[in-house]
């Protein structure tokens, strides 16, 4: 059974169809990439999948349960986490606090327990601390736990955004241009990290990206969007050789990326 079922998702902004009839059936532990030119509606899809925009038409079902009409924080609590195209960390907080801020929905601490600092509450805080440290360790950020997020190097900020999203304990992770602005070596690290997310944590991932060197080797399936419409879908090889995709996005001079890398 598919974990996420998106059917005929469409949204209009004052007559402009930003996304038209987008359908996607995600299997567990799949990595799907959405590519396409700027303005094709990729981030708009993410915004619908996280409850920021309400679609004009269509359905979103997570494990058979419809998510339409829920608020963004409820989408997050149900298990869809995301990162942002332009990094949006809680910049003035420490690295570890950034991560802990994404775990508040799973904590049962009440307001009065917080005031009184009951033993139960203190214990829970310790548990959250341990979780956060554990996760930071996994992604090599534990040595920077007490640094302010805004003082991290760019690549580490991108990684921290993913770690923060993982703290939500999501089922599905949406990565919006995870390697934007990164250099080639960082690209490889990120590709390794994304694979680990799937292999070790069992996550299902949808990613938006313009770096074809990054997308082609790791994506199980690729969807190509242009002007809100899906113009192609398939494996990296199929998409790269599709004349419509070359015309709309990849360009005539495009050389195939070796997908067996």
């Amino acid at each position, binding site marked *: 059974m598919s974990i996420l079922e998106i059917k005929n998702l469409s949204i209009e902004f004052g007559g402009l169809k930003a996304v038209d009839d987008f359908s996607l059936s995600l299997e567990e532990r799949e990595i799907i990439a959405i590519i396409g030119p700027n303005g094709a509606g990729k981030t708009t899809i993410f915004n619908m999948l996280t409850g*920021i925009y309400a679609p004009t038409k269509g359905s979103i079902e997570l494990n058979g349960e419809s998510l339409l009409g829920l608020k*963004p*924080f409820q989408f997050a609590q149900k298990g869809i986490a995301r990162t942002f195209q332009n990094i949006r960390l809680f910049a003035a907080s420490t690295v570890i606090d950034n991560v802990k801020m*994404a775990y*508040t929905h799973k904590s049962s601490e009440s307001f009065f327990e*917080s005031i009184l600092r009951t033993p139960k509450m203190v214990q829970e805080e310790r548990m959250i601390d341990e979780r956060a440290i554990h996760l930071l360790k996994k992604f090599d950020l534990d040595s920077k736990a007490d640094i302010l997020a805004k003082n991290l190097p760019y690549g580490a900020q991108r990684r921290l955004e993913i770690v923060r999203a993982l703290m*939500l304990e999501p089922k599905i992770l949406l990565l919006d241009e995870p390697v934007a602005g990164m250099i080639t070596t960082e690209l490889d690290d990120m590709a390794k990290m994304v694979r680990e997310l799937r292999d070790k944590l069992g996550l299902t991932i949808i990613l938006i990206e313009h770096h074809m060197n990054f997308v082609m080797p790791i994506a199980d399936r690729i969807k190509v969007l242009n002007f809100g419409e899906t113009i192609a879908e398939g494996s990296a090889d199929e998409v790269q050789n599709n004349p419509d995709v070359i015309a709309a996005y990849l360009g005539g001079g495009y050389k195939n990326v070796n997908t067996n890398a």
Partner: protein
Amino acid sequence: MSTLMQFLVYGLQLGSVYALLAIGYTMVYGIVGMINFAHGDFLMIGALSTFFLSQAFSSFAVNGTYSGLIVALIIFVAMVGTGLIGVSVEAIAYKPLRNRPKMSALITAVGVSMFLENFPRALPFIGPSPRSFPMLFPAKRFQIQGVMISTTQIIMIVLSLVFMFILYNVVNRTKIGRQMRACSMDKDAAQLMGININRVISITFFVGAALAAASGIFYASIYPQVDVYMGGWLGTKSFIAAVIGGIGDIRGAMLGGFIMGITEILATSVNSNLGYAIGFVILILILLFKPAGIMGKLTIDKV
């Protein structure tokens, strides 16, 4: 020297009133991004409701004094009640305007302030006339090395420091604190991290209004007269305290409150008219030399 110490005691006492009130201004500004001009009136609601509560409990009073337990109960009920009024004010007046231009919320806040002052004034059982506030705390006085200090002053200063300590801990070391800080930095990202920002904003107003109520009870315990307009002037001065400390920063509000209280008492001791002016003098100096306030950091908005 002992005169100076004596003024310092008065200054701390008045400062704790300003500090508790300034915290509410700064928290609401930090999280919602608006200045709640009705915040001073929460102080009035706290003081007035304490007056009526103590009347309701008057049968428990022995020779006009209440037992510690009853006083604690009265203060607790007044704080929670005022907190809930704060939550409803936000839900009714400010929430519908959250995504509108900032100016709308600001003007609404002025309107809410007028309403909170004049609605009780129009109610027959409250009315405009000032009332004398009951003695809640024992009025014993001690003399320590020439400095007179009363139990009321000790209780006030200690309790307000306790409240501030708890608040600081809650904001920095608990779940709701993390949610508040996340909302103050980036509301959209916060909701995508599973945080219900409506709930966080409600709790912020609850905490701010409850602390304002405590501040009102303390103020009325030193200057034992309460009326529906008492929040206006005190609110203005506490707002100045919050700006001096750096609006948006809780430590700044506490510091600003005590600076305001102590300088006001010192200035009054020189000339009684100077007391009112000194706060504004400090405000102007701060705005000239450190526009973001003592604790605040100047942020430059990207254009």
